């Protein structure tokens, strides 16, 4: 099963679609989770997920905004989508009945 950060990364990359690359993913993760993501954590996790076949990466175009340097573009593979879905289902199942989940759906915690 995926780790928490692996799930966050895959979900963020999937959400960004064709615009998924290092800087965009870091910015999106910081915005949605409120936590800064280090370059080390990002790129070593991307490598690990690519080795597992959950992501595919390739070198994109260089842009002036990046000082003429290339991007490492990222696409989530079908296997990656399935792994993220399995993780989400597992978290949903394990969270069933938890007080914060019941409160969120309008019920009482007992």
């Amino acid at each position, binding site marked *: 099963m995926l780790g928490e950060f692996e799930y966050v990364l895959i979900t963020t990359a999937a959400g960004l679609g064709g615009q998924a690359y290092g*800087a965009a993913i870091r*910015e999106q993760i910081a915005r949605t989770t409120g936590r800064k993501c*280090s*370059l*080390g954590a990002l790129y*070593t996790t991307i490598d690990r997920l690519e080795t597992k076949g959950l992501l595919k990466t390739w070198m994109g175009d260089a842009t002036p905004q*990046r*000082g003429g*340097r290339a*991007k490492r573009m990222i696409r989530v593979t079908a296997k990656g989508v399935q792994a993220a879905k399995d993780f989400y289902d597992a978290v949903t199942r394990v969270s069933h009945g938890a007080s914060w989940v019941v409160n969120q759906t309008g019920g009482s915690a007992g």
Partner: protein
Amino acid sequence: MSLGWSLTEVAAHLLHHEEREVVLGDLSEAHESTWHGLLDVLGLVTRRQLQLWQNWRPWLSGFGLALPSSFLLMGASVGVSTAYQSLNGPRDIDQHLLFICQVLLLAAWSWSGGFVVGKLSRLTLWASVLLCLTPCLFCMVRFRIPSLSRASLLLFLLPAVVGALQGVRRIQISLKAGFALAVSVTALMVFMCSSGRLWFVNWSLIWPVWYIVSTAPHASREVERS
């Protein structure tokens, strides 16, 4: 260009070329403070280095070859210098022959050791260099032979550096050339041993040449593939 950014670029040189471009591009785009960028790059470099050390190659290269060989090669360098001093004119052919054998062996051991270090641990070469130079500095400080210069300890360095650079560039050694080198070195060592001029511990310096032979067929297959 700020000092922080210059340092970041220097630190990024420890990464692969493609990753360096990507990381520096990400930092430019994010407009992060240069010092945060530097820490980020150093963090990535550290993680990459730690990943490399999970493999056996840097360990073998650093602790199995660079560190022990530097002591032995310094001893052999001093041996060559001493042999040179004790040459008694052109008539003593035996001594000249032994001296030439010592020089050839020192060059072959140093080059093959450097080559294997460079080939085994391209990205952790800095560690092997450090493990080789630390004993050198230690021995230079404690060097106490009045008739010899301290530099005589380091005769092995030039062929070792040439070998390491060729190893890093993955220069292909054919099986034939590698085998010829290994057989020659072995023959020279047997000859020196029979004349009582070879310390038995120096036999451990033989494995890099035979390692080159053992990896040569793979290397030629790589050439065919490419």
